[in-house]
């Protein structure tokens, strides 16, 4: 493999990793943008999405890319329940309550998953396992092309939903000015539930794509991706969906480049080095606005 081939390969792995980060961070940013809450348990929704996909796939043999839709629907429901029972009662009572509540949720979801599915590492094999297609000088497993395609499709669908539908416009309005949205008759509590549900569904999509890419998963898998998702939304700008997309891509590519050129131990550190640099130069993040 020549140097350009290696470089392209590293970029491709960064793009793949970025897809998972983008979906997770976009969901987190959607929830933060509308509700202004900090949910450290967001990675656990990725984990639940992964388990739902793996379980349904192993039980039925249905194509896991089809199960992605089911997983997202289930997580919309779980997200709505969590928002209604946990976050709504403490909304506006202070960030500390949100932080401790979400930390509590991490333990509840992790232990609940361990009780249901056990805590051993698991993995499943995609039905397209072993199939590769040539992309330029690379020979790429087809699953990664599908993953990138699904991520793009989900983001386009989200964009159209936010721009073209009434609920999407109400979500944007609530995100821009909660009191103003209330004054013009928007039911912001209903918007909160929908936003939280969609945010969780995006995490479920990330979990499903994690599983089909053949990566191992267990009940504790969500913690590190959640931390990185927070880094991405701060990097991209709090509440900014384009910021989450650019931030996710940047992080995926930076991590893989650092692992190649500096060594694997720098993989996680580099994302936070970039975060610090961006915050020093532009405290609102790449796409953030003052006041966020």
């Amino acid at each position, binding site marked *: 493999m020549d140097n350009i081939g290696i470089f392209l390969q590293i970029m491709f792995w960064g793009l793949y990793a970025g897809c998972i980060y983008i979906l997770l961070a976009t969901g987190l940013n959607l929830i933060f943008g509308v509700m202004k809450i900090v949910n450290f348990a967001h990675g656990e929704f990725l984990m639940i999405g992964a388990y739902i996909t793996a379980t349904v796939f192993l039980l039925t043999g249905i194509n896991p890319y089809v199960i992605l839709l089911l997983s997202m629907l289930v997580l919309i429901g779980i997200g709505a329940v969590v928002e209604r029972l946990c976050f709504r009662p403490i909304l506006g009572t202070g960030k500390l309550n949100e932080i401790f509540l979400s930390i509590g949720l991490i333990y509840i979801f992790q232990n609940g998953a361990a009780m249901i599915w056990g805590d051993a590492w698991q993995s499943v094999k995609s039905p397209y396992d072993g199939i590769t297609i040539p992309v330029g000088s690379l020979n790429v497993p087809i699953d990664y092309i599908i993953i990138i395609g699904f991520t793009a499709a989900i983001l386009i669908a989200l964009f159209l939903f936010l721009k073209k539908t009434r609920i999407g416009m109400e979500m944007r309005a609530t995100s821009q000015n909660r009191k103003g949205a209330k004054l013009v008759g928007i039911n912001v509590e209903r918007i909160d539930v929908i936003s939280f549900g969609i945010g969780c569904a995006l995490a479920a999509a990330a979990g499903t794509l994690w599983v089909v890419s*053949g990566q191992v998963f267990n009940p504790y898998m969500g913690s590190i991706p959640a931390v990185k998702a927070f880094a991405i939304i701060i990097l991209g700008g709090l509440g900014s969906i384009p910021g989450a997309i650019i931030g996710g891509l940047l992080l995926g590519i930076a991590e893989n480049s650092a692992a190649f050129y500096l060594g694997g131990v720098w993989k996680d550190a580099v994302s936070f080095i970039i975060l610090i640099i961006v915050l020093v130069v532009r405290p609102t993040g790449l796409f953030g606005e003052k006041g966020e």
Partner: protein
Amino acid sequence: MKYQVLFIAVLLVMAALIAGCTQQAASQQTTPASQGIIKVGVIVSQTGPASNVGNNMWQSAQVAADKINADGGVTLKDGSKAQIKLIVGDDESTQAGGQKAAIKLITDDKVDILVGGYSSAVTSAYQQTIAEYKVPYIVTGASSPIITHRTDIDTSYIFHHCPTTDTYGQYTTTFIDQIIRPAIAKKYGFAADRPLRLALLYQDTAFGKGVQTAVNNTITNNKLNIQLVSQQSFKMGESDFRTPLTAIKAANPDAVYIAAFPNEGAPIITQARRDIGLNTIFLNVENNDNSQFYKDLGQYGEGAIIESRFSPYTAPVGAVADAQNAFKQAYFIRFNTYPDMMGASTYEGVFIAAKAIGNAGTTDKATVRLALVNLKMPHVIEAMKDQTISFSPDFRESTFDLWMEQLSFNQTLGETRPTIVWPDNLKTTDFTLPSWYTAGSA
């Protein structure tokens, strides 16, 4: 004012409690076995990245305790019999969790002896506690030599019942030189003096770095004809290895030696062969001899090598085969799966604990430590040097007979299964290069 008084009172009560705990810790050193119970604390990773192996260790300890108790228990100095009671401590696969587990087992549960420890990084984090409370500890998993070689704290109560990274790193590197290098040279018609191109992919912990050091030292000290063409590291618990594997592929290796846990080792090989197209021989450390590892590998494990001393799916011909099979059966009946290599060590660890307390005739910790120093007991299920379990006088390490397994894919099972290929006195078949194998090039 009233609240200030209350606050001070609470502080005083807490201070008194802490002082009480400290005194209790000091006084319990001479507590004899009571009510015919020997409390054995088992420190394992029940949760976190190492939980698969950790639960196997805990379950194996339970099978051992059941057998000892069913056979009448442990005979003490006064002729009375004592039953083994296991108490588990979950180190949560973290250093902080390990510290909590050790403190709880020693001070709350007041165990007589400790067994277990998997991650070297986690185990080394609570060694100070072991030194402080002077509780005999039979380490059955953490393989870094620092566990008993370190000089910054007192390790005299720690006994190492597993080969160190020095031992199996050297063993595996010797296998590469003596078996793999000639096989590649023969298949490809390479010159006899062509060095084997070896890549290392290791966990960035005491365990992984220990293997890295052992491989480098073995090559240098023994002047082996092996060239290290790439040395890549990764964080413990990592699941995406595509980038370091791309770097390794770019170095064109003849073989890749992986120092990883099973939850890392299986994805490494899968991603290497499926995503990167790295069709080479992967050598794995013994902790990967685990049924989940075989399951996760699937067909990608074909041709891979594991250095081992106990396998869920094979046993060496000889004295320990029956004992190993009996243990596997007992474990399977209770847990509907097979024990792994770390489970086997922990199973033996409980037997060693029982034997040492039996020899000491008491649970007095200093006396039990002396019994461990002087221990000479017949091997239990693992093949030991001279068929005897004993600890070396310098670093209190036991010595094993190791072997190398090669995996072949079983279409019916959808998993690979191992056969022993080295050394000659234990092997059941010869090492072979798979048909898809591709040698590296300079």
